[in-house]
């Protein structure tokens, strides 16, 4: 078994209104920055997972992203592995 570090980024689907993102975008004007035409807020989930190999880790993370981390009705997600695996003892 190896330990894999990964990050799942969950974001609202483009068709879903993001009022919190809009409110934040309006604050960029108050900060004095013009020209922000789009600002949408997502969630970054960092995790470590034990798996046989990277493909095993990937399939487990894909399952949890589809079933738990994101709601596919309103959200999409992307996965990236953070760095090389660490071999676990035994």
């Amino acid at each position: 078994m190896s330990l894999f570090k990964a990050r799942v980024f969950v974001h609202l689907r483009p068709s879903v209104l993001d009022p919190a993102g809009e409110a934040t975008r309006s604050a960029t004007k108050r900060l004095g920055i013009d020209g922000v035409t789009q600002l949408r807020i997502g969630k970054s989930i960092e995790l470590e997972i034990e798996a046989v190999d990277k493909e095993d880790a990937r399939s487990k993370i894909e399952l949890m992203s589809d079933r738990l981390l994101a709601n596919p009705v309103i959200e999409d997600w992307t996965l990236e592995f953070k760095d090389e695996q660490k071999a676990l003892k035994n």
Partner: protein
Amino acid sequence: MNIGIIVFPGSNCDRDVRWATEGCLGVPTSFLWHETTDLGGFDAIVIPGGFSYGDYLRCGAIARFAPVLNSLISFVDKGGKVLGICNGFQILTELGLLQGALTRNKNLHFICDRANLSIESTKSSWMKNYKKHDSISLPIAHGEGRYQCSPDVLKKLQDDDSVALRYTDNPNGSIHDIAGITNKKGNVLGMMPHPERACDDALGAIDGKSILSTLLS
């Protein structure tokens, strides 16, 4: 006749529902801790409002994995009646017993108010005490009540006559003013408004009583 109310860590309308069903309607009502799996002997189950598991991740996202909800799926398959109110509605959509999702209110406010509603479907027995387009008024209290679904799902809801309640004056940006829906079979109802808070004249409204009384049939 027995009603069960599922209680999660963070539920906060469980006692209100019991007060309404037992105190106002006189029906024996029990609390069901979320770790139970036995729903035997219950005629109807209510998932109450609140903030189950702190609503961490998304409203209802963690609650849907509670052991009791596996049993709830078989309960629904057998035709048992299930009412999800507010957070209970959010949990039912996360669980997939109802379609769509509840998202952040358009104006970002937690809205605590009274909402005028229109009865949109009398297909299921939930609204049997009403006629289509009857007006009722119920309290609402939510930050994430903006109902969202894909155009396909919306069409299906309409074709199946599954839109149960609409807001007369949409407070949260819900698609097509939707405040409550049923499943296709009609034995599961999810709604953002709180019928349990409108069951006694002392609280200024009794429109909730008609809806809760249909749990019994």
